[in-house]
Every structure is written in structure tokens, then in C-alpha cells.
């Protein structure tokens, strides 16, 4: 006759929990949403921290080192790799030609900065950036259909995909640059550039750059070259003598890692003219170490939020204990053991936490998408929304555990409910 036997202890628990959650639906939903916010926040803080670290220290930089003016290596990297910050100064053209000829150097590409178009940097450089440079192993910049590489002797530009998307520039568009690295509408140059190519997205800071021939920067109206130590302004139709030329930085790719050690010795430790930022990952890692306290504070705040939410799980269940004393007494009178009632409350707290943690993934995705959009807008660095991190496992598990622990306090109250005195209704 028996059709569906269940374990007498476990059988009733899911039903009791489900009924209780339904009976206190409003407080259950509010608590689940609070847990979800805490879970999402915690996962987002840890995941964004980890992903930005990876993106800025080990992401697709494509170069091994940056040679620039004497000063901060970090500033050099931020300026030349991530196209952020100001340039620490210029170095003579001769340094570029010298290092380019160095047998240890596989690729040397000069960058000359100084102008922007609506906040997007114009980088004066050579064709090799588009023909030889690999922003990821085996991956060179590629042009969208119809585009071509700029002609070094013309005022032509190849623009990154993000620039095209944000400024509306496209193939055959013409634009006039603005002076400086910060967009100032009143400071526009008279020279007009023609867009001859739009790059396919690379998901790197290069997407935010307008590439033009280096001569374009040299010859921009009002630009003064001080490569020889004296002021020189390029004249139309006249070749610029090399001694007057200067560049903001030289991007370097070495033939082997030993070259980095050797050049570091020669340029940074023995020389006084320039700075070699190398290795790039370590330079950026230093920045993250300096800013490590920020992520530690954020992590701490996220953990505290989880604890606060654990408190709210406790409070939401504890507040129902008085009205549920009769329910527990009835359950006990029906044969439920004390530990069954205790387990039901702990399971209820764990269920609220688990549902919250599950919903937390949605909150996490929203926060991450928002943060990724901001980071991409500001730096061009793209975070991988689907990248897994241990926090995706440990945060939900930890929250469920903490939630279950929070349920222990009300569970003890339920455990201690006196059956006989609570079987009659209380007015």
C-alpha cells in the first residue's frame, strides 16, 4: 500500500522550508535580494581586481620594453602602452636609430605624441606598427575592408575601431586634430587628415588610438622640435634634419630575454639620458602593488557586506520565531524531532543564502558588465566577462555556509520550543 516512502528525518525538511519561505514571502524575497547584492558585489570586487591586474600586467602588450625620457618607468608604460597619462618628455631621434640598429632588438617603433582628436590620442609612428607589430603572438593589426595603411608622406590616418565607433569617423572621413593630449575644442590645428583605414577590433588600448605618420606630428602647426637642444619648426616642402627630430618613446621587441637584462644595465643603471621600462608586466605590477591597499579595502568592505547580510538572514528568520512557536510545537507533536526542527531552520537560512548566491551571479554579471564598459571606455582594456575566478566558487559556498551559520541562532530558539505550552493558540 505504501507508495512513496521517504526517510522520516529528511522527508519533511524540504516541505517545511518551502512552506516557510512561501509564508514569509516578502521578507524572504528582500533577504534573498540582499544576499544576491552581497554575493554579486563580493564576486565582482575580486573578479574585477584579478582581471584588471591580469589585463594590465600580463595582457596583450605586444612589446617587451619602452624606451623614453629619463624618469618614471610607470609613466612611460602608461603613456606608451595604455595611452594614458602624459609623456615624461622626449628623446632625440638618434636614440631611436641607435637602438633600432642594435642586433639584440628585433623591432623598434617610435611614437611621437602631442595631439588628439576629441580626446583620442594621435600617435605619430612608422608603417611597421601596422605591418610588423604583433599585439598578440601571431596577431597583427588588420584593416577593415576597403582600408589601407597610411602613406608616410601624406596627412593620412588609420584609426582604431573604438575611435571609429565613438567619433563617427570612417573611411575617407577628414578631421582636424586638436593640440595636446586632452581635448580642448578651442585648440584645433589647421591641418586636415584623411582616414584611409579602420582597424579591426583588437580589444587592446590600440583600439582607442589614431595612427598617423610620424612626420604628421613633426609637421603639425605650432609643434617645436628640440631634438638638437635648440628649437626647430618644420617647414613645408623641406626635409627635417634628423638631429632636430625627437620622439616620445620607442617601443621595443627583443630577440631574446637576455637583451632586456643587458639594455636595462646599459640604459637604466649606467646611462643618464633615457629610461628603459622593462619588463613591462613588472612595471605595471608595481603600480598594482602600490594600489594594493585599495583592493584590500574593497575586499574588506565586500566581506563586511556579506557579514551584514548574514545578520539580515538571521534577523529575518529570528523575527518569525515567535509567530512560529506553535508551528514548531505542532511539528514536534506530530513526531518531528528537535533536531528536525533545528535542521529545518538552518536549512531555511542556507536556502535563502543559496538562492541569494545564485541570483548573485546575475548581479555580478551586471556589475562586471558595467565596470568592463567603464574600463574599456577609459583605457581600452577589455575584461573577459566569462573568465572564471575561484571567487565564483568560494563566494557562493562561503555565503551559503555563513547563511547557514546565521540560521543557528534562530534554530536554537526553535529547538528549545516547549511543545506542551505552545500547542494551544496564544492570543
Amino acid at each position, binding site marked *: 500500500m505504501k507508495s512513496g*516512502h521517504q526517510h522520516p528525518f529528511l*522527508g519533511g525538511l524540504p516541505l517545511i522550508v518551502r512552506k516557510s519561505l512561501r509564508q514569509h514571502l516578502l521578507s524572504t524575497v528582500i533577504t534573498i535580494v540582499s544576499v544576491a547584492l552581497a554575493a554579486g558585489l563580493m564576486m565582482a570586487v575580486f573578479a574585477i581586481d584579478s582581471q584588471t591586474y591580469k589585463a594590465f600586467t600580463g595582457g596583450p602588450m605586444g612589446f617587451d620594453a619602452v624606451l623614453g625620457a629619463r624618469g618614471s618607468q610607470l609613466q612611460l608604460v602608461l603613456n606608451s602602452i595604455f595611452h594614458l597619462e602624459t609623456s615624461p618628455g622626449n628623446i632625440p631621434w638618434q636614440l631611436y636609430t641607435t637602438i633600432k640598429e642594435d642586433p639584440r632588438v628585433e623591432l623598434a617603433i617610435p611614437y611621437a605624441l602631442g595631439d588628439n582628436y576629441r580626446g583620442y590620442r594621435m600617435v605619430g609612428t612608422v608603417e611597421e606598427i601596422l605591418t610588423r607589430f604583433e599585439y598578440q603572438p601571431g596577431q597583427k593589426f588588420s584593416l577593415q575592408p576597403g582600408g589601407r595603411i597610411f602613406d608616410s608622406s601624406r596627412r593620412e590616418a588609420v584609426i582604431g575601431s573604438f575611435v571609429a565607433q565613438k567619433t563617427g569617423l570612417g573611411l575617407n572621413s577628414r578631421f582636424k586634430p586638436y593640440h595636446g593630449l586632452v581635448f580642448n575644442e578651442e585648440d584645433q590645428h589647421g591641418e586636415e587628415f584623411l582616414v584611409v583605414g579602420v582597424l579591426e577590433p583588437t580589444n587592446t588600448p590600440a583600439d582607442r588610438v589614431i595612427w598617423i605618420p610620424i612626420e604628421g606630428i613633426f609637421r603639425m602647426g605650432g609643434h617645436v622640435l628640440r631634438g638638437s637642444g635648440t628649437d626647430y619648426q618644420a617647414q613645408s616642402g623641406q626635409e627635417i634634419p634628423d638631429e632636430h627630430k625627437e620622439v616620445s618613446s620607442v617601443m621595443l621587441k627583443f630577440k631574446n630575454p637576455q637583451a632586456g637584462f643587458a639594455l636595462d644595465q646599459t640604459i637604466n643603471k649606467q646611462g643618464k639620458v633615457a629610461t628603459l621600462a622593462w619588463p613591462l608586466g613588472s612595471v605595471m605590477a608595481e603600480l598594482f602593488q602600490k594600489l594594493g591597499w585599495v583592493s584590500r579595502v574593497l575586499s574588506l568592505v565586500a566581506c563586511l557586506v556579506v557579514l551584514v547580510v548574514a545578520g539580515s538572514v538571521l534577523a529575518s528568520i529570528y523575527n518569525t520565531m515567535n509567530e512560529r512557536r506553535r508551528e514548531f510545537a505542532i511539528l514536534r507533536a506530530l513526531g518531528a524531532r528537535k533536531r528536525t526542527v533545528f535542521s529545518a531552520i538552518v536549512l531555511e537560512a542556507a536556502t535563502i543564502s543559496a538562492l541569494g548566491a545564485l541570483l548573485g551571479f546575475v548581479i555580478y554579471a551586471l556589475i562586471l558588465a558595467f565596470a568592463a564598459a567603464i574600463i574599456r571606455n577609459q583605457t581600452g582594456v577589455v575584461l573577459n566577462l566569462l573568465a572564471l575566478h575561484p571567487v565564483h566558487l568560494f563566494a557562493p559556498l562561503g555565503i551559503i555556509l555563513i547563511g547557514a551559520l546565521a540560521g543557528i541562532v534562530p534554530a536554537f530558539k526553535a529547538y528549545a520550543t516547549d511543545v506542551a505550552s505552545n500547542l494551544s493558540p496564544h492570543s
Partner: protein
Amino acid sequence: MPILEIRNLQKSFRSPEGGNHVILDIPEFCLEAGHQAALEGSSGSGKTTLLNLIAGILLPDQGEIRIASRNIAPMSESDRDRWRALHIGYVFQTFNLLQGYTALENVLLGMMFGSGVDLSFAKELLHRVGLSDRMNYRPGQLSVGQQQRVALARAVANHPQLVLADEPTGNLDRQQAQTALGLLRDICRENGAALLLVSHDPHVLNQFEERHSLDSLNCAAQGGGEE
């Protein structure tokens, strides 16, 4: 063969003044298996306390309570809970149905702590008490008479050997009380369960061949009870 045997049972409560108030002192009581007995007692005479002791919800200060020859007094609380779930059905004056649960779930819940869920038997019981079309109703959606019928079905859901009924008709009008009482007795008979019903309602008590007066069983009632 007796299903319930009580010997030298004593139960006292601490009074607000600090003294020990003996509420029950029953030298002997027994109920044969399958029999139905009514226990008469005035309000405050310790009827509910006695049923709670028999159900293992309360522990006696001394004495034996044997159900199916097994003394439940020395059992641990957990064992008494299990024993109660498996061997005893309980019907309360206030029905004590769980409000968030449907009629069917209330019956099933009783089974969950006992021998296990038997959906078809739970439905059969609700059908037997005339609630086939109300199985998915919550107590608040049922009349008091219907609620008491759900409570009856729940009380016998685990095939108990003994059903305790504490003023089961106390909240019902005369007609509903008569129906519920008849149903309770029939359903116990059909399931082979003995019935011990406590009441102070003469109309209910008169329907039982076997009647006991708690006041005469209980020495504490005769002697004042203060220790």
C-alpha cells in the same frame, strides 16, 4: 492485551509560589488494544497533561507509561518523538493544523515523521472523511468542521495503535461535534487503533461504553496535590 498501561504515574509542576504542585497521581490505568474509552474530567483537572504524558511530550516525575508493552518514560526525548510518530495519533481541540499547508500536506506531514509518505493512503483518508474535493485547500479555506476532519485523517495517517483525542469536539457545534465524533470512532475502529478521548461534555461522554473519571483515577485530585 492492553495497549496502554499506566502505573504509579506522578506529575507535578512548580507553582508560582515556588512549591511543587502535584497535578497527577494515578496508581493504575489501562486501555485494551482496539478499545475506545472516554476520560471525564473537569477543566484544569490535568486531562491535557495526562494525554501529553501518554504521548511522550511531557515526562512523568515517576511511574510507568507502557504503550504496547514498552515503557516510554525512560526513553530519550528523540526516541519518544519517534515513538510518538510511529505509534500515537493525536487530535487536538484546536485542531492544530499547519496554516500554510494544504489539507493533503497536513496529512502527509504526519506521515513524514512516522513510517514514511504514502500519498494514496493520505488521499484515501481525506476521501474517507469527506474531503476529496478539498485536499488542496488550506485550513483557512475550510470550515471548522472540515478542519477537524483533516485533523482526524492526520491522526491516523501513520496507522497508530493508540489515538489520543483532547476535547476533539470542543470547538464544534452540536451537529458538527456528533459528525466528527462518529467519524473519529469509526476511523479508529477501521484502522484498528484504540481511542482515548478526554472531554467534559456529557453529550460526548455518554456515547462511550467505557468511561473513566480522571478525578477518581487521580489521587492528587482527591488529596489537594500540594507537596
